[in-house]
């Protein structure tokens, strides 16, 4: 039951003032500017763009500053802004094979055309706090080497040639936009992928981990992981010509999973797919594993009743803005609802007492 109640304006205004002051922190310390955030907290910026579902570094940095570094609050701000933008159109599907890679690795094949390139990764760091960063200004410069500017082919295309992996049938089918149409289960894989790509990293990580621990049988290898810039092509409506309208950083993961075969097709590997804005490889890998576990129906696998196979469970709960909206609303005034519950519990207790006295 909802009854509107007035009051609290002064308290709210003063709370906002204090929020503003505490966001600024100690005024003897220089204020953070947006460029410092977008240049030096790049992975936070990437996460807010990915889950905010809007690629714009300056806006993301602003959201992080405004939210005092609370990334879910920042994602909320991005999503809210996103809804105010008129949609000019849809791009052509991106070609990740033409990616300008900063990083490209495969955990399944050692020697691959285009080679393994580590890029700026935390992977082989020792995870020891680096106290040198406490001092100002010291950093190492990236090394450079001569290169061949050749396209880097996808690793799984080699398995494809031998028929050892399930084929992703070439298609130009477009997908319903889940942000503009109501969700009806069962979903298409495209709708699931859109949802996962903007889903919460922590939630997807947990689900992906559950598949690795045995909740849904699909042991995964990282067939390929790549991060880099991709040209987004868009047809200018007035001119009917396609231009490279934006350069966007993506991380893409293709997983190779255990076999599937039938009387007609000999055993072959199956695959999962992850594609996210920014350099977010934990999320891209998680997305690939969860995409794969939800494909059980397509591959004629057994439904084991586990969370990662249940698309209704996964898709309904992976959006952290939906989740936090519902979760956090319970801290807002529910006085009347609670009053009703209180009356009810008192009444039950009275009846209980009466019954006890009778016996």
């Amino acid at each position, binding site marked *: 039951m909802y009854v509107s109640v007035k009051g609290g304006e002064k308290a709210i205004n003063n709370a906002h003032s204090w929020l503003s002051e505490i966001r600024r922190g100690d005024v003897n310390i220089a204020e953070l500017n947006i460029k410092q955030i977008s240049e030096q907290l790049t992975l936070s910026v990437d996460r807010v763009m990915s889950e905010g579902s809007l690629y714009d570094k300056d*806006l993301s940095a602003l959201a992080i500053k405004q939210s005092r570094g609370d990334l879910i609050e920042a994602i909320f701000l991005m999503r809210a802004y996103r809804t105010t933008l008129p949609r000019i159109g849809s791009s052509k599907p991106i070609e990740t094979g033409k990616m300008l890679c900063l990083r490209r690795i495969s955990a399944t094949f050692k020697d691959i055309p285009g080679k393994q390139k580590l890029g700026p990764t935390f992977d082989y760091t020792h995870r020891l706090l680096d106290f040198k960063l406490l001092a100002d200004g010291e950093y190492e410069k990236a090394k450079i080497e*001569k290169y061949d500017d050749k396209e880097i082919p996808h690793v799984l295309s080699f398995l494809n040639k031998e028929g050892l992996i399930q084929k*992703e049938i070439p298609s130009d*089918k477009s997908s319903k*936009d889940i942000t503009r149409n109501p969700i009806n289960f069962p979903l298409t894989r*495209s709708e699931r992928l859109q949802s996962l790509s903007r889903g919460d990293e922590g939630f997807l990580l947990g689900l992906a981990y559950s598949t690795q621990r045995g909740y849904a049988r699909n042991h995964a290898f990282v067939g390929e992981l790549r991060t880099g810039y991709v040209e987004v092509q868009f047809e*200018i409506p007035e001119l009917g010509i396609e231009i490279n309208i934006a350069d966007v950083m993506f991380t893409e993961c293709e997983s190779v999973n255990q076999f599937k075969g039938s009387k007609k097709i000999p055993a072959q590997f199956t695959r999962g797919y992850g594609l996210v804005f920014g350099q977010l490889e934990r999320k891209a890998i998680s997305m690939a594993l969860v995409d794969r576990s939800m494909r059980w129906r397509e591959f004629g696998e057994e439904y084991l009743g586990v969370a990662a196979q249940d698309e209704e469970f996964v898709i309904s709960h992976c959006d952290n803005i939906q989740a936090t909206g519902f979760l956090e609303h319970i801290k807002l005034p529910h006085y009347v609802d609670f009053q009703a519950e209180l009356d009810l519990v008192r009444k039950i207790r009275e009846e209980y007492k009466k019954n006890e006295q009778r016996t």
Partner: protein
Amino acid sequence: MKNESRNQWLSYLATADENYLISLWDNLNMKIEYNWLREPEIGSVMVQGKAGVTGDNFNVGEVTITRCSLSLDKKIQGHGYVQGRNKYKSKIAALCDALMQTEKKEIIKRNIIDKLIKYKNNKRNEILSKTEATKVDFFTLVRGEDK
């Protein structure tokens, strides 16, 4: 040069570093008369990916885009579709697009488009050469029993 066609110059204008493009334009100090066909507006384009690289299309997320259109006279129109939310960048792109269709083409090409191409190529080279330096060279260790 390979930027002769309109989609080429529009592409370099769209993805230009906004501060760089603005400084190139401002340095030219050109006074151009124009009429708005569409004043700059900020919007978004939905980026599509492909499931498993080659499969069905899916929506990944949006990217901010600013666009405007203007005309120099009744015949020549310029369109400024650019990445980001900078209205001035969009207007410069539209003006350059229009001027590339006039006798001022050479000035714009030499002082803006060619420089944007060079800027982008330098960025690309920088990334490729740094990536190359992190290439893994595998070697097999000699095992004890083989000695």
